């Protein structure tokens, strides 16, 4: 189910501050902080690629149609050093997402926090190098 994140806007200051800290080289150009998004869906595919990986997630929209989002995750090398592999989540498993959409309305790429069984998934290590702030996806 997809629903716009009015709740997120209430806590948006904290969220936007954290995403700004971890914005990667092109993140500010690609994603729109004013277009929040939250969903729960089924993993279709893990793209274990540089410079960011992606998790493709199938989600049923308001009309019942299945749409596929690509959730951006960190670079595979850093994820590997943090204990993750391509097999940390499998196709068919249910994941949840909170984040923001792309600026390009045609793009299905999204950026934010991914969780599996209520636990953070594919958390990176960038925060380890930027002053000890919490480690999150871009």
């Amino acid at each position, binding site marked *: 189910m997809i629903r716009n994140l009015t709740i997120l806007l209430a806590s948006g200051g904290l969220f936007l501050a954290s995403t700004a800290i971890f914005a990667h080289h092109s993140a500010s150009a690609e994603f729109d902080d004013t277009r929040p998004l939250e969903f729960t869906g089924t993993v279709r595919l893990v793209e274990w690629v540089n410079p960011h990986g992606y998790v493709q997630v199938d989600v049923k929209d308001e009309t019942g149609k299945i749409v596929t989002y690509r959730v951006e995750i960190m670079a595979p*090398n850093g994820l590997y050093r943090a204990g993750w592999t391509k097999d940390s989540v499998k196709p068919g498993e249910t994941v949840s997402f909170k984040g923001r959409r792309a600026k390009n309305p045609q793009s299905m790429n999204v950026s934010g926090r991914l969780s599996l069984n209520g636990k953070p998934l594919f958390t990176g290590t960038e925060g380890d190098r930027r002053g000890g702030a919490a480690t999150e996806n871009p």
Partner: protein
Amino acid sequence: MSIRWIGLALTAVLVTLSFTAHPFAQTRQSPPDRGFLAGKKYDLNGPAPRLANGHPDLGGVWDRPGVQDITKSFTAKDGMKQVGQADLQFTEAGLKAYKSYDPKNDYAGACLPYGWPRAIQGLHPLQIVQSDDFAAFLFEQNSWFTVVPIDGRPHPKDAKSVPTWFGNTVGRWEGDTLVLDTIATNGYTMLDYTHPHSTELHLIQRFTRTDFGHINYEMIAEDPKYYKTPIKNTRTFVLRPNWETMEYSCEETNLDQIKNGTIKWTPPNVE
């Protein structure tokens, strides 16, 4: 061993197998040690190693603070540290270049070479491999490398007529400190994520391996065309003995964004 204990042991084995054969995701786990010192004994607080020629050996895989802004200071994981310079004195040309920065026109997003100042800060490891006369700096970021003569030779006389992204770099020893001197950059790179430099950049980098597990790093950027005074940052790098330098291809997915116009890059008007 009693039948009861054998039964309990078999049950434990079956339970374990049922978990390992689970069709769903693996749990997060520590990666295997494939580092450059795997299987060897070391003391991160021990003395810095030396080559047979007596100079400190900077060799190893190094984790460095991720410096998005050279004016900021912070301490990061395991003692990584950044001391920035809060006050930058722009020249008129420098301020113009700084204000003209457009994140949509991002050379890093376009997978072009970072140049020394941005590469030496990092979200991804740097491996240094050193011999008597050369040091190779292997940046995992985009699998870039640069090889520097460290035998004290001067810059080539024609260096400034051959500008490049990383510029021309030569090294020398001042006691136990390796000093890298860079000129002849093309002016397309940044000192961090947003602060520009001109083609007149003269970059001094000082590497001092204070013990087995740490490097004290100092960067001094002299650029009289863009900044009235030199800019200084000092940092602490941390050795990661259990890390290996891995492949990294920026283009792998950014190519799509470059093609569809999300990421663009045109050379800035270099002063």
